[in-house]
């Protein structure tokens, strides 16, 4: 058995730095490259793409990423684990197979495909069988929005990924795996952790949580001492150096920028945290209050002491549904009296919308430069601000009303308060809202499957 397994994070979300995957496999030795592409509403975007073209529905960036790391996979045996499959992991795997063939590596890359998370085709049957898929926040049953559902995927854990690795997959593609399972699975596989070895599974999950947002634990978006974090242009993405006993170190490649310190890792640990005693995943319930950190070297943090508890009998389900329309328009007002002008324009706009008889579920005005991010907490705003951006948004079920609103912004340039600019982007775009509906389902209702192709 290996005594250290190195899992490198190469993408923290769909849209992350395109350079990162290649830098992770070329910057030093790693065993696994972990790529996380899925956020809460990403699945619905992919579902829309699949409806337009049945060969789509996966994270297209993954193809470019694989292209950039293919030599490392073929020649050096680096294995890749990604939830890039979205709502169409099989098509994603086919695209990777085609890419390998195109690059002269046809048949040389074994691709594991994990399916079974997609509940959309079974949704009515599940509801009929007494699974209400109630919204975890509001308690409402899914039947209230059933007609508007776009996608429904169970969050699945490490087990099918471990199986794919065991069957020799060099690239494992999943749909809605949990972000953390992508990191825990290779550790569990390499060290042979039992499915009820709660402490070690929890350690693997926490390792995953630390690196799942890429550079956000290695100096990116890091508040502490931010001015002195070196060379962010060349930031190093994190690597988990896992040990068989469940302890691990976070590091990055030598010569890269950024910083790995106890505070930088702690900032990431608290990111998107709920109850720290019970971080619930399909594999284990991890206890964040057991985590111990120590600086074990330059840009190196040791993580140990982690405890876990048995997993629950439920899986979380990520459901996306159509929830109306929104549009946001902006204009910039300059000194003198920038904030007063923006307030005046806001009043004019609201009166015009009112006279048009347009009704919205929500109308929101923000004054960027004065109070958009901290609201009243920002305190007294200086009287002589050089500029303020008026940011005006509406949301409602009636597409036509939202559309009509978008035509009321530009006229203000000539028929509203003075010293206004920043409208070059044109009329605001009407956006269909795809909202998130978190639910639970019994684990027994979800069966995953693994296929390995080459």
């Amino acid at each position, binding site marked *: 058995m290996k005594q250290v397994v190195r899992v490198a994070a190469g993408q923290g979300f769909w849209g992350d730095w395109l350079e990162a995957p290649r830098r992770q496999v070329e910057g030093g030795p790693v065993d696994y490259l972990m790529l996380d592409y899925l956020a*809460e*509403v990403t699945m619905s975007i992919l579902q829309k793409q699949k409806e337009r073209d049945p060969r789509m529905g996966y994270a297209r960036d993954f193809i470019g990423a694989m292209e950039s790391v293919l030599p490392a996979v073929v020649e050096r045996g680096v294995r890749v684990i990604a939830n890039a499959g979205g709502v169409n992991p099989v098509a994603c795997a086919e695209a990777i197979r085609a890419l390998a063939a195109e690059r002269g590596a046809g048949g040389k890359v074994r691709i594991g495909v994990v399916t079974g998370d997609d509940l959309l085709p079974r949704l009515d049957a599940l509801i009929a069988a007494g699974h209400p898929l109630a919204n975890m*926040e509001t308690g409402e049953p899914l039947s209230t929005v059933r007609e508007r559902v776009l996608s429904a995927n169970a969050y699945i854990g490490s087990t099918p990924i471990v199986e794919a690795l065991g069957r020799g997959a060099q690239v494992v593609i999943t749909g809605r795996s949990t972000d953390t399972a992508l990191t825990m699975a290779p550790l569990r596989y390499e060290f042979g952790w039992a499915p009820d070895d709660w402490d070690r599974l929890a350690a693997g999950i926490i390792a995953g949580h630390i690196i799942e947002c890429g550079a956000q634990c290695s100096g990116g*978006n890091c*508040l*502490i001492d931010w001015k002195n974090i070196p060379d962010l242009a060349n930031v190093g993405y994190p690597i988990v150096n896992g040990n068989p006993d469940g302890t691990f170190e976070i590091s990055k490649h030598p010569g890269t920028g950024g910083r790995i310190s106890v*505070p930088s890792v*702690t*900032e*990431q*640990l*608290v*990111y*998107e*945290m*709920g*109850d*720290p*005693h019970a971080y619930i995943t399909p594999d284990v319930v991890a206890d*964040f*209050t*057991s*985590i*111990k*950190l120590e600086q074990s070297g330059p840009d190196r943090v040791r993580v140990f*002491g982690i405890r876990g508890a048995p997993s629950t009998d439920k899986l979380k389900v990520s459901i996306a549904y159509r*929830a109306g329309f*929104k549009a*946001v328009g902006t204009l910039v007002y300059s000194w003198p009296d920038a904030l007063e002008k923006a307030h005046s324009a806001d009043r004019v706009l609201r009166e015009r919308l009112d006279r048009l008889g347009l009704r919205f579920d*929500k109308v*929101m005005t*923000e004054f*960027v430069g004065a109070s*958009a*991010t*901290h*609201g*009243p*907490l920002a*305190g007294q705003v200086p009287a002589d601000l050089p500029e303020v951006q008026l*940011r005006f*948004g*509406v*949301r409602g079920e009636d597409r036509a009303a939202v559309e009509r609103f978008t035509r009321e912004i530009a006229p203000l340039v000539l028929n509203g308060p003075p010293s206004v600019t920043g409208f070059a982007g044109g009329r605001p775009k009407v956006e269909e*809202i*795809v*909202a*998130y509906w*978190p639910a639970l389902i019994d684990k027994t209702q979800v069966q995953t499957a693994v296929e390995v192709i080459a």
Partner: protein
Amino acid sequence: MKVRLVDIAHARSGDKGDTANVGVIALRREWYDLIARELTERRVADHFRGVISGDVQRYELPNLSALNFLLHGALDGGGTLSLKTDAQGKVFSTALLRMVLDVPDAEASSLGLPSA
């Protein structure tokens, strides 16, 4: 003595639906107890009055010298529904760090706290 939270702690925030979470981390381990004593659920709820519509829950992580706050009803519905610039609660962290604490002079000097 007045002590600015931003001088004794750092923070990161994120979202879960319409809830923003803020993790507040003491800049020095020995400042954690003071921060844990001062940053009660009630105090934080007062701080965010008019900014969030729901209540505040607090969790303690003494192992990380950190507190985790859940601010419910913070994000205008959250995620894609929200019209807010900060729809994902990314800068609720710095909004919380705007707090100013009243610390007895003797305690502040024995802890070596920077004054506001």
